[in-house]
């Protein structure tokens, strides 16, 4: 049973790649493999309004940085996120935290 999820308030994700590199450094992941990967939608007009979103997605290599968290640290991606829009949240708090974030928020249990 997983106890924590990764919450991303993706309306603020700027696509800076810091999470991807921080994860590769932490877990010594090869250049063509990913522990978390940022996907992009747009820029594209939706019903007349510009949309441009990024969404990081953890992969099978993501263990939410168990070792770091046991040592009291944040996962490498959360720690370095320039937009400060990622958090590790106990599973039971996820819905409340998503509600608090309002719109354009996702949570993963990798």
């Amino acid at each position, binding site marked *: 049973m997983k106890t924590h999820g990764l919450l991303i308030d993706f309306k603020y994700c*700027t696509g*800076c790649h*810091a999470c*991807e590199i921080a994860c590769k*450094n932490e877990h010594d992941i090869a250049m*063509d493999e990913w522990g978390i990967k940022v996907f992009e939608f*747009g*820029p594209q007009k939706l019903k007349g309004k510009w949309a441009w979103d990024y969404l990081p997605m953890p992969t099978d290599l993501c263990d939410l940085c168990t070792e770091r968290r046991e040592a009291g640290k944040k996962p490498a991606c959360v720690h*370095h996120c320039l937009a*400060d829009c990622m958090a590790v949240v106990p599973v039971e708090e996820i819905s409340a935290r998503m509600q608090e974030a309002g719109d354009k928020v996702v949570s993963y249990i990798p």
Partner: protein
Amino acid sequence: MAKCPRKINDELYRDEWQWQEGDLTVTRNTQWSGPGCHNGCGVLHYTDKDGKLVKIEGDPKSPMFNGRLCMRCLAVPEAENHPNRIYHPMRRDPKDRGKDKWEEIGWDEAYDAIASEVKRVSAEYGAKAIFTMVGTGRNAGWQAHALCNSIFDSPNVGFGFLSGESCYVPRIAAMAMMGGAIQVMDCAQVLEQGYDDPEYVVPEICLIWANNPIVSNADGFLGHWVVDLMKMGMKLIVVDPRMSWLGAQAEMQLMLRPGTDAALALGFMNVIINEDLYDHEFVEKWTYGFDELKERVRDYPVDKVAEITGVPVEKIVAAARRYATAKPATVQWGLKLDQQTDGMGATQALQCLWAITGNVDVPGGNIIVNTGYIQNDARRLVVKHVTDVDERFGNDLFPLRKMGVTEMSSTDILIEALETGKPYPVKMLYLQSTNCLANMAADPQRCMKGMLTCDTIVVSDYYMTPTAAATADIFLPLAMSTERVGCRGWYNPLRTINKIHETEARSDEQIIIDLGKRVNPEATPWNTPEEFWEDVMTHLETIKVPEDFSYKKLQEDMYFWQPTAYRKYEKGLLRSDGEEGFNTPTGLFELKSTMLEAAGLDPLPYYKEPDPSPVSNPEYAAEYPLICTTGRRSWEFFHSEHRNLRSMREFHRWPRVEMTQEVADRYGIKEGDWVLIENAQGSAREVCVINPKMAPDTICAEHGWWFPEQEAHSSNPFGVFDVNINQLVPMCKEGPSGFGAPYTTQMCRISKCEDFDPEYPSDVPYDNVAHFSL
């Protein structure tokens, strides 16, 4: 997550500057050496028992950065431990420039050779024949002045052929004259409590103009502060000829024709003054020249501005009203204002805009800040006077230079001096941390030919660069990041750079001290940079410190905060006489600048059509119909740096030129194709990326490209002349003030490039199209 909670584990992230974590030493530090940007982020350097940097993380206790860190800084261990680092000085016979005929030498031999050339050139031609060049700021700015003015005794220190000093200098000059101080967007970056300071107010509107701050992070400004404030409710208006992520999030985007910023800002003021939306109290009490400004903006009715800029009338009116009625409103401006021949006019206009709306030095407006202060103290300790200052290049031609508005020597004059020997010959160049032929030089092949006329060229850098490979006689390897000490005073707080281990490479400070001992021993009585910095701390003029203050103490404390205040003009905090008002000749914020007037320049904001442009030169535009803007940044690189880092190149392998689908179709180009970009002066090759929305007939090409994986020693070192976009930009077209140059307004044409397909040594598949991200 309006504001993410910042819980910090005090056991793991400590207040002391250094501790042990398992086998690793953790050092809290300031990342402020190249490769990397201006920001000086707070980092944790993790080093092993041999002092090798094995990991870097953001320091959660670093104010305003809070542990976050960009991908370039996360690659610092890769940069520092790179197999291509050079650790020993090298020498090459000047007749072998460009060839792989380097001989490794010791530091003493390198210093002796440089000292002997300094003495010979000074005796034969005068010390002014020695020119020192420097790249962009960071921990390498004041050092060039110290070396040039004091050790070489020459007045000539300048940028690496950055025409018109067109990076921040034009804006700094205009700010110094109009408001008497540097002003920046208020993101609470000077407040010890940051956003939690009770006096701080979140701007209602941020007008982002001529930059994309989240990527560029220019001049010490962390672009993601804008994102922090968006979370707190700040809205955006973005003025940019291209669609950006911030633009997509904005209430309004104004996609102007490149180079027409001044007209647009004057149009804003036409609306604001005509509709009586300006701040009467501030204007009447604190500004000078409002009536003349009012008269000037009459020349810029909105319909005329719409025609010049290509921005529709209703958008101009709506944006002007929104900015003027938002309280507070702030402007985050950028480099592209400097990179226009008459960019000073735009700079003046934007300052007038934030002044007449009452946003000067108010919470959440554009605040007056202290930048580069400790660096000035450091420089003053070495440079007691400057010899032959009147003979500094450009001082006779440009009154603002003579008035001391900048201390940089003009490289637009230097290139002519190298070519003609007039006004006087230059025989020796010392390049400190500038890879100018790949980066800031306009017309780099012309600049290279000019450089090669010199008897002696010294280059200091971390790696072999196109500039060093093509021109250097002596190469001095520089210490990076964890290998050097330093100090950074920019906004708040003051912080140190801490040396963790030593290599054979040396810091700029150590080189100044060592060369000083050979050439001008009185100027450098210290033996080490640590001794030097302790001495600086006892001679501070720019800030007040407690009696027990020392460099060592600052290092141990990590940060030293200075008191700040809003509305300093009301409190007598801006002028040396202690009177209230601004530090200008009239004591007021000068909408009409008395100093510009004294210099014979237009004292009011003005617009002049770029040359060439479709309007000013339709014949040229018929042949070269597209406007090519350059200089937009990417996540992976800082100017010409980071091209040798595999991690960055796997994300961003080739130079990218953005264009709309319509423009690409017109020229038979597909996304992912190599594109030849050319004009009457030169050409460059970049890969096409489609940006769905840009100003009409505009393309946006990346700068700073070279291929470290290619051959260094050839007539095309590291392939730089295949891909350097500044080959389309001329030298010597600086603005009437001496500042500003047309980097961002060149005309060009494009075609599909069939015969160009460089290789990159990697097994990782790279799909030009799939790897695009604007």
